[in-house]
């Protein structure tokens, strides 16, 4: 242990750590999947009709409401 100046370290290193920022982690689990599926739309943007792209954009737009709510909850310190 070079950084503890020769003192014998105390206690266990592999302790339980409280996973903070739980709302952000939940949002990550949701948006990770959404983000990857958007790439499928991205490459086929030129080949599908405009109505299809409009649907995807509408979906993105509608996603704004839950995203805003989740951000509002996530910014509260008591929810971390």
């Amino acid at each position, binding site marked *: *242990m070079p*950084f503890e100046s020769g003192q014998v*370290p105390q206690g266990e*290193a*592999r*302790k339980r*750590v409280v*996973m*903070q*920022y739980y709302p*952000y*982690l939940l*949002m*990550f689990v949701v*948006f*990770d999947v959404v*983000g*990857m599926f*958007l*790439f499928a739309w*991205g*490459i086929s*943007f*030129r080949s599908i009709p*405009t109505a299809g*792209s409009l649907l995807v*954009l509408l979906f*993105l737009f509608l996603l704004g409401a839950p*995203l805003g709510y989740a*951000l509002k909850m*996530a*910014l509260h310190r008591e929810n*971390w």
Partner: protein
Amino acid sequence: MVSLPTTPAQIIPFIIAIVTSHTFITIVFFPGFIHLTLVVMFLTWYERKILARIQLRIGPLYAGGPGGILQPMADGVKLIFKEVMIPYKADKPLFLGIPLALVFLGALPFAVIPFGEHWVIANLDVGLVFIFAVTSLFPSMILIFAWASNSKYPFLGGLRSLFQQVAYEIPMWISALSIVLLAGSLNLTQIVEAQQKIWFIVPAFLSFIVFFVASMAELERLPFDLPEAEPELVAGWFTESSGAVFMVIFLALYMKLYLMSSLITVLFLGGWWGPAFLPQPVWFILKALIVATIIIIPRGVYARLRVDLLIKVGWTRLLIIAIANVFITVVLLSTGILSAWGL
């Protein structure tokens, strides 16, 4: 394709044909191992010089032979001969194996990065997704390494690395989505070919900013170097590494720096395109090194963000800007403003 030798006399021509084949040269020499090693050594020297100029450090400015070139080699020799200290009760196979995995993951994405029209090892159709898939394994590997080293500070650093991934990854993907919309392909070669008339930094400037900030967070560079915050966590997740283990981790980190700067070059700065008086790979490497310089400079200048502020910036600023840029791109494409540049 080279046919297998059937008689002993054919063995030497067979070997010569293999060694001079384009595939072999791309894997071993140019975008492959030797080029990567040289660039990584150059980057360590380069970063030390830049920081010495910014912070007026006398040692790195003048030490180590002509221009300090000998210093990286001296460092390498020193680290190889140092004792590898393995902490008490550490998970030995993981502690020694994860650094090698990190180097592997750092070098693997270079297989799909096009350094020139023909200078690419694997012309993969899902290249961009492949790179994201490989680089998103890094934080998990870091957490495993931190857990294996059985010490408190590395463990906290590894956890911070995961939180950091939560902050940067989705803005990064969404900002790359605008590029995919513009190029209509996930193949990196086709993405670069689509930028022949206009670099994508012009129509997608917002997403360039988002991608740049996100890749700085991915590289654990200041102001986002939370997993290895020196004043708080000693050296972060690689506190317990020493000797050769540290050298291997260092190599992986610099490979990743070069990887992200070449990815920014591919996606936004027109890849290998440039005036014809220099060959294509030279333009590519020049652009990548300029991007690497801009990534390195804040290390001597900026302070560090808090974890919660980083996550807040990632979700409330970067993600919103990236989604806004997707809408802008769709409008630009469907109104045909960009058709003058063949998009």
